[in-house]
């Protein structure tokens, strides 16, 4: 009843191409943006920013990037953590080695470095497909893990191998409070989200999807596999690289190579599969699920009053996490985004039967 598009006519091409063609959606998204940009920074506590909101935003950005590659172009990658690492270390080096380097530029520089890496490690995708490619992308993961561990130049010759970022400044303003950092992440996520949405519904997005659905058929109708696959790798790695730089700069502050290990790659792949492959909203749902679930599982034994040792609790958490993943895959293999769109379909009629 409240979600009917009756009477909303698209009278111009502009209206037909709108990002959110339904008026209720526009209102909802504006309200959401208002809450996220104004209400949350005023109300949320520092702990919420540090433990929930900032990780959620950064990881959803990374998941967004990975979704371009896996969800839209169909190239499975297990090397996302490595591309995040490239972004983080490149941004770090730009920041350390160039005096007065603006933060935004080093973030973008991190993204560009990750793009180069992504295209190089994406080259095998022109020959290898499917699970073979998935395992081949692990080469990127292990190589870059090793590279960041063993080449002292990357960590600015730090003796322990860990690097730390000093105070962050944006346009001359210091970013000190968690709320300011949150706003930086949020703005980047919004910008990247809109850009990605427009990419995937444009010509290049249709090329990616054709590649995903059947690459031979796509090549027959004149889509260049080299161009389509490598551009997907490039765009995806850029976003992932920026997310990696944010993860290092804003969330961690100081990190060592283990922060971008293979676990991170798996985690991100979990996010987009649970959230929904090939959907922008899916990246956000998935990131929320993966960020919130461990926090929740941490508190459950506490609430139930069970006396559990830390080790047992962490093993139990692993078990429940694994079981929930399998459960979600069985119940809704298309991810939370599909549940969301089904719910919206239902809402159009609710509460009337027809």
């Amino acid at each position, binding site marked *: 009843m409240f979600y009917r598009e009756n009477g909303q006519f698209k009278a111009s091409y502009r209206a037909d191409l709108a990002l959110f063609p339904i008026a209720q959606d526009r209102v909802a998204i504006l309200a959401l943006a208002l809450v996220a940009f104004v209400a949350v920074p005023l109300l949320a506590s520092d702990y919420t920013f540090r433990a929930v909101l900032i990780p959620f935003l950064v990881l959803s950005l990374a998941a967004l990037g990975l979704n371009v590659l*896996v969800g839209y172009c169909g190239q*499975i990658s297990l090397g996302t953590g490595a591309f995040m690492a490239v972004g983080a270390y490149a941004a770090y080096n730009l920041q350390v080695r160039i005096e007065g380097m603006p933060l935004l530029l080093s973030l973008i520089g991190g993204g560009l470095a990750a793009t180069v890496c992504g295209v190089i490690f994406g080259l*095998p995708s022109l*020959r*290898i*497909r*499917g*699970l*073979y490619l*998935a*395992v*081949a992308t*692990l*080469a990127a993961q*292990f*190589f870059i*893990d*090793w590279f960041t*561990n*063993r*080449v002292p130049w990357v960590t600015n010759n730090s003796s322990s191998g860990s690097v730390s970022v000093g105070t962050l400044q944006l346009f001359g303003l210091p970013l000190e409070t968690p709320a300011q950092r949150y706003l930086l992440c949020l703005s980047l996520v919004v910008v990247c989200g809109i850009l990605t949405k427009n990419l995937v519904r444009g010509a290049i997005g249709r090329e990616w999807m054709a590649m995903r659905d*059947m690459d*031979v*058929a796509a090549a*027959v109708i004149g889509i260049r596999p080299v161009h389509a696959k490598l551009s997907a790798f490039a765009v995806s790695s850029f976003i992932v690289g920026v997310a990696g730089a944010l993860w290092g700069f804003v969330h961690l502050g100081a990190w060592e190579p283990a922060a971008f290990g*293979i676990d991170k790659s*798996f985690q991100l*792949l*979990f996010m987009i*599969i649970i959230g929904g*492959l090939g959907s922008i909203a899916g990246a956000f749902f998935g990131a929320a699920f993966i960020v919130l679930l461990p926090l929740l599982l941490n508190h459950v034994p506490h609430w139930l009053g069970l006396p559990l040792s830390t*080790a*047992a609790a*962490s*093993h*139990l*958490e*692993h*078990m*429940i*996490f*694994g*079981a*929930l*993943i*399998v459960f979600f*895959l*069985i119940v809704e*293999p298309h991810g939370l985004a599909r549940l969301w769109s089904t719910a919206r379909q239902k809402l159009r009629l609710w509460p009337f039967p027809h």
Partner: protein
Amino acid sequence: MGFFLETVFGGLMAGMLYALVALGFVLIFKASGVFNFSQGAMVLFAALAMARFAEWFPRWLGFESLLLANVLAMAAAAACLVVVAWLVERLALRGLVNQPAITLLMATLGISYFLDGAGQLLFGSATYKIDVGLPKDPLFVLEDTFPGGLLLNKEDLYAAVIAAALVALLSLFFQKTRTGRALRAVADDHQAAQSIGIPLSRIWVIVWSVGGLVALVAGIIWGSKLGVQYSISLVALKAFPVVILGGLTSVPGAIVGGLIIGVGEKLSEIYLGPRVGGGIENWFAYVLALGFLLVRPQGLFGDKIIDRV
């Protein structure tokens, strides 16, 4: 020359162990089309079960014999893995029939989280020993040909022999028995196998059990070499390049791939490692596999990929 040969032998024996883990992947992939990421977790689970049961049985039943304890523990661990296989089929695979490969892969990642947690919760998460009486003393061979002879590790030699025997046994099982034929039929074509009356779900339980038993053998060998601890599940990461190098669907491929990776890794570590700062064995195998795949995208012995529109 002697040193080179020593390295090659060491590589071959390490490769045999990689092949053993890789075999578990190939068996399960062939029969159920699932790329089983949880193989590493299964190895950990099996090794933990084996180590702890061997410790617990003498205490529970009050006997001293190491052999009896090991045999009982092996049987109990095998039983655990069969139960795991049955549960996996029942609770996970059955609900995921006809899903794309990536969904199945993620499901096995979930299973691997679960097994990691369950194994350490049930059996403890400290470092344990497995002592099945593999000799640890070094062995010198060919002392006439080379000054000082070639140094071989007896334990590795035994492990390689066990692995080779297991492979031979599995090939016999696949070629000669009724169940083996059914497994191969399922591997060939699920629907056709089902239509001639082969029960798919039972076959999956069997093949996951066989995968589990292979994991048990791998777990025992690795466990007695390195001790049983969480890091043993990372052995699976060593086996990935082996499977894609050999081809996901080929048992001989797993063996040959394992040997190539084993030798390549050792040689690169010794001759190339010092020049670039060492520690390259983690990624060298992957890059080697990647190089092979660029020439043969389906691996050395994998089924030829035919593109049709």
